[in-house]
């Protein structure tokens, strides 16, 4: 019996702590669902919308923490990183997790901005973690492009505050005060402010054409961090956009934001379709797929109606869990083959059966094949789109999804099957490395068949918040 030491022990403690957070956020969810929003000194405000994102974050965080154990232990064993750096990793991991939680619980829209900027600053170190040319270049682009975006978002926030204080008589930046005064705000200022918000936070969310940092950062970060960036970090920016959307929806109706969402959603889908087809690098492939899914979510927000919004929020969760499985699997593959070039990687299923199968299941789940959960959220959005009379837009949406389905399944199929290189030993994987996959797979499969009442109740309450009820 070998003793568990160093980075492995740290990893296990970290994973247990995040499991506890997972349980805590479930309890919080049921509390909010039963007895309404939780507020604390006007600074923290947690309603169904926040809880929904908290739940998503905690689930992906736990999975990433569990996956990190083996990943970091292997890096330290191979000497890629030193023991001291492994400790730094867990420190940054938790700081990053903390900033993301913070985004979802603050009431003050200015503090929301600060929290989102903090997520960038912390995660930049995780993107540049390996300290080589590629990762530092990616980290620099990430921090610079996102900081510019977020500066524009701050301008948008200030314009919101301008009309809120001039026309609404609001003296704080609290979301709860703004929403109460929403009806009295100046529509002209709001429209311009919302553009800044959408472009600003949209940069962070990876909405095309502001997505250019995303493929670099996601492909260079460590695999568990890629999962966090893609799965939940982008969603925190979506969360911020949703908060502002609910304010302007009350004041000027939904058609203004809907049109913008549909336009940017389709643009993101189109851009990612083009890049997914020609992609050679497996992690970049997954990164562009994130642009696609952010496009799906934005389109869903724009397609509107209760069903479209339900689909969009449901998709936030589905994409988070599914994309994490894919990044974990890709992380295993890259570690084993020492390359992320899909022209070189062959025979993943025979070289590492568990990862190979996860990769295949993940690819189908991610691209929206039944019976996995992504299929259902995409179908909801599509039905809503057609139902609202957006025939051309919905047809385009369907066409892009179909193209991406073909491209991703083709790419992943090529690397999963085929003949593995002779010098690569086929080896089983330890159970500890499988926990994260199985944990997430449960959500992907179960939610495809049955939505627990708590879960749909949570989304429905969140929808009421978005629609300004």
């Amino acid at each position, binding site marked *: 019996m070998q003793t568990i030491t160093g980075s492995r022990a740290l990893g296990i403690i970290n994973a247990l702590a995040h499991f506890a957070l997972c349980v805590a956020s479930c309890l919080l969810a049921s509390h909010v669902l039963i007895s309404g929003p939780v507020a604390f000194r006007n600074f923290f405000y947690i309603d169904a919308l926040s809880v929904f994102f908290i739940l998503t974050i905690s689930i992906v965080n736990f999975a990433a923490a569990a996956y990190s154990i083996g990943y970091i232990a292997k890096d330290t064993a191979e000497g890629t990183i030193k023991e001291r750096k492994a400790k730094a990793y867990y420190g940054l991991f938790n700081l990053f997790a903390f900033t993301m939680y913070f985004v979802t619980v603050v009431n*003050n829209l*200015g*503090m929301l*901005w*600060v929290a989102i*900027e*903090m997520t960038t*600053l912390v995660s*930049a*170190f995780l993107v*540049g973690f390996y*300290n*080589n*040319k*590629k990762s*530092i*270049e*990616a*980290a*620099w*682009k990430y*921090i*610079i492009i996102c*900081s*510019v975006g977020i*500066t524009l978002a*701050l*301008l948008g926030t*200030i*314009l919101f*505050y*301008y009309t809120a*204080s*001039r026309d609404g008589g609001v*003296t*704080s*930046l609290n979301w709860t005060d703004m929403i109460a005064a929403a009806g009295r705000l100046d529509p*002209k*200022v709001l429209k*311009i402010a919302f553009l800044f918000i959408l472009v600003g936070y949209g940069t962070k969310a990876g909405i095309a054409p502001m997505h250019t940092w995303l*493929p*670099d950062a996601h*492909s*260079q970060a460590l695999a568990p961090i890629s999962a966090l960036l893609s799965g939940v970090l982008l969603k925190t920016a979506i969360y911020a956009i949703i908060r502002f959307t609910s304010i302007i929806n009350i004041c000027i109706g939904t058609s203004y934001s809907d049109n913008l969402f549909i336009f940017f959603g389709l643009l993101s889908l189109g851009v990612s379709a083009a*890049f997914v087809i*020609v*992609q*050679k*690098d497996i992690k*970049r492939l997954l990164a562009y797929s994130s642009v696609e899914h952010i496009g799906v979510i934005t389109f869903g927000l724009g397609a509107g109606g209760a069903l479209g919004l339900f689909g969009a929020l449901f998709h936030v969760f589905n994409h988070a869990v599914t994309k994490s499985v894919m990044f974990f699997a890709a992380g295993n593959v890259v570690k084993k083959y020492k390359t992320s070039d899909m022209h070189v990687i062959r025979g993943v299923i025979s070289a590492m059966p568990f990862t190979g199968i996860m990769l295949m299941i993940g690819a189908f789940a991610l691209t929206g094949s039944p019976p996995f959960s992504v299929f259902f959220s995409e179908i909801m959005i599509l039905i809503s789109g057609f139902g609202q009379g957006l025939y051309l837009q919905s047809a385009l949406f369907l066409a892009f999804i179909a193209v991406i389905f073909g491209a991703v399944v083709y790419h992943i199929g090529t690397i999963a099957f085929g003949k593995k290189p002779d010098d690569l030993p086929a080896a089983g994987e330890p159970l500890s490395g499988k926990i994260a996959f199985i944990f997430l797979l449960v959500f992907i499969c179960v939610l495809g068949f049955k939505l627990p009442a708590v879960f749909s109740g949570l989304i429905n309450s969140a929808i009421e918040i978005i629609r300004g009820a």
Partner: protein
Amino acid sequence: MLINIFLFGILIMAFMMVAAKRVSALIDGFRIQSFFLFMLMFVLAYSADSTELYIVTALLFVTKVILIPVMLRRVVKRIKVNEDLGLSVNPTVSIFAAIVLAYLAYAFTGMIAGIPAFFVSLSITLIGLFIMIFRMKAIAQIVGLLVMESGVFLTAASISGGMPFIVEIAIFFDVFLAVIILGIFVYKINSLFTHIDIDKLTELKG
């Protein structure tokens, strides 16, 4: 009256920075611009006689007039960077572009609120963005970001009488942290690539 003089100074310094050819000139430009911003805030704080505004003004002075320029200078000195800014657009064209940006800001702010301070703040936000895009040194991108941020800060001060106090403080802290972290990355870029020319960072494609 006094405020308008300081606003004019802020705008002029933005133009000077656009025309700068050397890294040190850019940093000096930023420092003087921050000083004008500080004076302006001081006048506002004095006329409103508000302790909170005085604190914000003092923080502005400490971070943007003293600490950040000193830090940027030290980075430049330590990495012995080539002083040339690497202009992808020459100064004459850059000035012309900055004038166009300022006009756009003027036309745009006229639609929302015709306040001179708002016009200046939006102008320098756009000019900061211009510096970030068209100057190829990593340091210049940091300065561009700071100019943008100053612009947004001035917007807040001019149209909505500043943000709530706690938010203002948090944003200062955040910006300061961002500059430190960007500085760290400049060191890292320099030690890996032996230069800090952003246009030559081309490892990642597609």
